[in-house]
């Protein structure tokens, strides 16, 4: 019975990936992409990775889908115009092009097939490594948390997580740079006049905040943690923007910058304190590890939520 569910999920995700690439309309591809992300999230629950499933459903499917949907507004309107221009061209020139394009396509197909076979072979015969499960489990009592994934993220490999918060900040800066405008755009989304939508958003915000805070705290002993909480809190900012309250762009600039850099800064500050007291960069004293991890996670979640809101606010005109 179990194997049937697994095979179904596997087939469904492959099918949806195909539909994503082959759907004739871009809008359809984006909606199929939502479904693809949720299917992957189900697959991760089957593999026992509930933390990853929450992150996938919320960030990779939800947040990314929202960004794609929003950019669809730019593209889909003009794409049909270009399409007409191609059709107007005389027939014979198009045919010549088709023939010259055929050869690279066959080459690409053979290459992809070979690649697929080689990687299938590699995955099928992957050597038994044993993994790091036992090693990660043996030190869990010293890490300050009970959930192994949180222990890896914020204690054993805290350096990676710190740099990753930095990468998000870098991504935000790159988006600002590519946007070409120094100021945040004024919220051009016409403030929704729909009173039901605005009321519904106001009702959802405390729920989202509470759920995010719960995920943040629960990360200590189960699936959850800074990233999952950050998406919940980021969703608050995005919903407020959609409802016509661009709070994030209207709060003072200093506060905005502080929110964006709090996670990276606090993490680094703690690391430097540990170094001055004679430890390694992120070597928490075991007695305080639980409290310190919770503080780092809170600041990190605020920063990531602010970064996600900023990306959304900046990308939507």
């Amino acid at each position, binding site marked *: 019975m179990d194997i049937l569910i697994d095979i179904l999920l596997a087939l469904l995700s492959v099918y949806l990936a195909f539909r994503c690439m082959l759907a004739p309309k871009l809008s359809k591809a984006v909606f199929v992409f939502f479904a693809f992300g949720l299917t992957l999230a189900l697959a991760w629950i089957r593999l026992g990775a509930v933390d990853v499933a929450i992150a996938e459903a919320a960030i990779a499917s939800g947040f990314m889908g929202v960004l794609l949907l929003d950019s669809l507004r730019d593209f889909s309107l003009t*794409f049909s115009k270009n399409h007409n221009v191609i059709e107007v061209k005389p027939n014979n020139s198009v045919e010549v092009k088709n023939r010259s394009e055929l050869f690279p396509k066959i080459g690409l197909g053979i290459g992809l097939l070979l690649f697929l076979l080689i990687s299938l072979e590699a995955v099928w015969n992957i050597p038994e490594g044993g993994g790091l499960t036992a090693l990660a489990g043996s030190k869990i009592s010293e890490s300050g948390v009970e959930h192994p994934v949180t222990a890896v993220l914020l204690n054993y490999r805290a350096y990676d997580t710190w740099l990753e918060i930095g990468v998000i900040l870098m991504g935000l800066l790159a988006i600002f740079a590519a946007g070409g405008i120094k100021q945040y755009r004024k919220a051009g989304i016409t403030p929704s006049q729909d009173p039901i939508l605005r009321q519904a958003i106001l009702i959802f915000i405390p729920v989202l905040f509470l759920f995010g805070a719960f995920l943040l705290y629960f990360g200590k002993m189960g699936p959850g943690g800074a990233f999952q909480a950050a998406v919940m809190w980021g969703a608050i900012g995005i919903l407020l923007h959609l409802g016509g309250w661009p709070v994030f762009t209207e709060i003072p600039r200093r506060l905005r910058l502080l929110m964006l850099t709090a996670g990276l800064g606090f993490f680094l500050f703690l690391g430097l304190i540990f170094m001055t007291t004679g430890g390694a960069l992120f070597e928490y004293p075991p007695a305080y590890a639980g409290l310190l991890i919770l503080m780092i996670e809170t600041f990190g979640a605020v920063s990531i939520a602010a970064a996600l809101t900023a990306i959304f606010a900046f990308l939507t005109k």
Partner: protein
Amino acid sequence: METYKIYSITSVVLFAIGLGGLFLAKHFLRKIIATIIMGGGVFLCLVSFADRDSLSYADPVPHALVITGIVVAVTAAAFALSLARRIHKFSGEETFTDEK
């Protein structure tokens, strides 16, 4: 057949679909979606081997890698989207092909 084998095979197929889509798709948005599908394949591969190495719980190290990876991939994709929209804004183009 164990659960992890099904998903590790799926991950290879997903990566290949994404790679093919990246080359064959014309529109920027579709290319970006193709890279995200490739990333999904890599993550699925990592997590499926975490399941293979599970004792009472699955191997937490690949899980942590994948969680950070998802967030970084989404940030990079958002950057790609902003670049694509910038190209579109200035040149009106939405593919890399010469034909217009």
